[in-house]
């Protein structure tokens, strides 16, 4: 059972997800979708993962729920390693970690009414059929939907309602962690605000931990306690929301934050990243960000920077930042 005091229910250590691909006339090569990623998520907290497409953030999510078998590393939930579970034990584990996707059509069967869809999850939980109807209504209430929604089909619902149903369905098995993979990306701003508020309320009441994957940094700033920035399969910066957003260190993080089109920052000349995000199958040598980095030096081309703790708990994988720290730790501390 879930104990709210557990220091870290979800611990990820050196997670690797490699895919082997074979080109028509080439040798098989491996794509390192996730390469040596470590983080932890305490219950009742939200870890935000941001990054561009191809950065491996969704691969992390899929590897956590064992939809993709990790190539290496361990995932442990409340101290128990879950990486190589099979059969019944895998099923039982999945109950504890749920996913909410960007497009609710991925998780809702169009031919199943809302009550059937949620009922399916309730059956997994082992709730007797007689109690389903009442529980469905309770869950719908939880996500602030009227009980009448239970009889509807996904196509009769608006996008916001569908996403609420996905959340209700995820909640049906009483998970400890919910992975929200771009869960609000498809929603309108006014509806998005409602769903984000709702997710916060649910977390407050149930102590569920969120792994919140989003490309939208302003959403992460609102939702997340900790933020990890990923680039080509690796975490390049990791820290509290406050640290990462107020004092971003990695040039990539800085560029990402600067690129957010904000109503308040309009008209400002922004730091723009040139170049394309690298092909994850053929990443650049050294620091994979060096071809796009305005501050890259020779070492960046040859040596891959490790994720190193600077200051309080903020971790950065950047040679230039790390050198700067070594030289003037005091001056940096005060900024």
């Amino acid at each position, binding site marked *: 059972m879930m104990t709210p005091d557990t220091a870290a229910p979800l611990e990820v250590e050196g997670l690797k997800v490699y895919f082997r691909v074979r080109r028509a006339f080439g040798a098989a090569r491996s794509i390192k979708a996730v390469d040596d990623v470590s983080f932890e998520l305490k219950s009742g907290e939200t870890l935000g993962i941001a990054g*561009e497409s*191809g950065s491996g953030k969704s691969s992390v999510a899929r590897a956590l729920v064992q939809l993709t078998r990790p190539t290496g590393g361990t995932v442990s939930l409340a101290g128990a390693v879950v990486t190589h579970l099979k059969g019944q034990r895998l099923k039982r584990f999945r109950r504890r970690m749920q996913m909410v996707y960007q497009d609710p059509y991925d998780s809702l069967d169009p031919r199943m009414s809302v009550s059937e869809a949620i009922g399916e999850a309730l059956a997994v939980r082992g709730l007797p059929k007689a109690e389903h109807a009442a529980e469905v209504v309770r869950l719908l209430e939880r996500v602030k939907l009227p009980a009448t929604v239970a009889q509807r089909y996904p196509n009769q619902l608006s996008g916001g309602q569908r996403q609420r149903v996905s959340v209700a369905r995820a909640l049906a098995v009483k998970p400890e962690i919910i992975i929200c993979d771009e869960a609000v990306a498809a929603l*309108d701003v006014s509806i998005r605000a409602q769903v984000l508020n709702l997710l916060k309320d649910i977390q407050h009441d149930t102590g569920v931990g969120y792994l919140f994957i989003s490309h939208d940094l302003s959403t992460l700033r609102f939702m997340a306690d900790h933020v990890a920035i990923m680039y080509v399969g690796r975490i390049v910066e990791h820290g509290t929301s406050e640290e990462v957003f107020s004092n971003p260190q990695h040039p990539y993080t800085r560029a990402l934050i600067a690129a957010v*089109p904000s109503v308040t*920052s309009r008209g400002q000349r*922004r730091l723009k990243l040139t170049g394309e995000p690298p092909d994850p199958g053929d990443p650049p040598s050294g620091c994979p960000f060096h071809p796009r980095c305005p501050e890259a030096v020779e070492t960046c081309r040859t040596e891959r920077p490790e994720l190193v703790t600077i200051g309080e708990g903020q971790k950065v994988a950047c040679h230039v930042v790390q050198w700067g720290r070594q030289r003037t730790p005091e001056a940096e501390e005060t900024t």
Partner: protein
Amino acid sequence: MPTDHVEPVLLTDAVVAVDNLSVAFPSRSGSGEVIRSISFSVKAGQRVGLVGESGSGKSLTARAIMQLIPAPGRISSGEIHVGDDLTLATVSSAKKWRGTSVAMITQDPLSSLNPLVRIGVQICEMLRHHRNVSRADARQRAVELLNAVGIPNPKRTMRQFPSVLSGGMRQRVALAIAISCNPRLLIADEPTTALDVTIQAQVLDLLEKMSEEHNSAVLLISHDLGVVANFCEEILVMYSGKIVESGPTESILDRPLHPYTRALLTSIPSMTEELPDRLSSIAGSPPAGGVDVVGCAFAPRCPLAQQICSEVNPELRQLDDPLQHVACHAAGDATWPAVRSR
């Protein structure tokens, strides 16, 4: 703009003029109108943003301009004029201006790309059809275009099918095709919604560069006020098939007059300012499309609604700022109560 304000058709420098446009879908009850009598124009080289929630009719406005309203919908009244010479946009005239004078990129690039045809062929087809260039020149230009829209390894992409590309890459291909003939007006329907912020910034830069170089106007349709605020000189805010506020970007952002515009602005979490525990959100959801609305469509969700709001449809009107227009009974009324009546 209000109907008595200007005759959009007379604007000589306009590349699109929409006059009292209504679009309806057959409905058992009521008129089935999903766009209700909107008028606006986009001048050459101008960047106009059309903002609204899904179902507000913003994409349908784009499709109406392109004469691509999906059946059984139809333009029930009003006129649209497009191109330099402001031809009356009709289904029969569309072959002449669609793709050259006016191009569009849609929300979902898969809807504009043929899944069975290689990317290179699809781009060259457009160039060969409209520009009458040699096969080799078309290929050369296609590679340049793919490069310009930020596709790594364009030569390889030319040989690929849309299905192997990621959503972002497909959108870039769609953009490459749309800009291939330097359109006078580019309608971009949520072009960057699926893209990452750094790429979004690049694509918006690209759109900006193109619109400046070729004096092409852009009608940018987006739910993201941040994108529109940074890209457009003028903003049209749509709600439930009507334009509820319009004006220069600065005016709308600094002094939003419609309660809906204000609510939209405050429901986005800020990147710089102190964050509240809860975001201010608009209660409820927009009315279903095609349902006849008496009074103001926003009234059921509006924090300021009074009796009159559910009875009389507010006209789009001008207040102090001659360029800013708003359709709200409360706007500019100092005596208006600060809480809703019911």
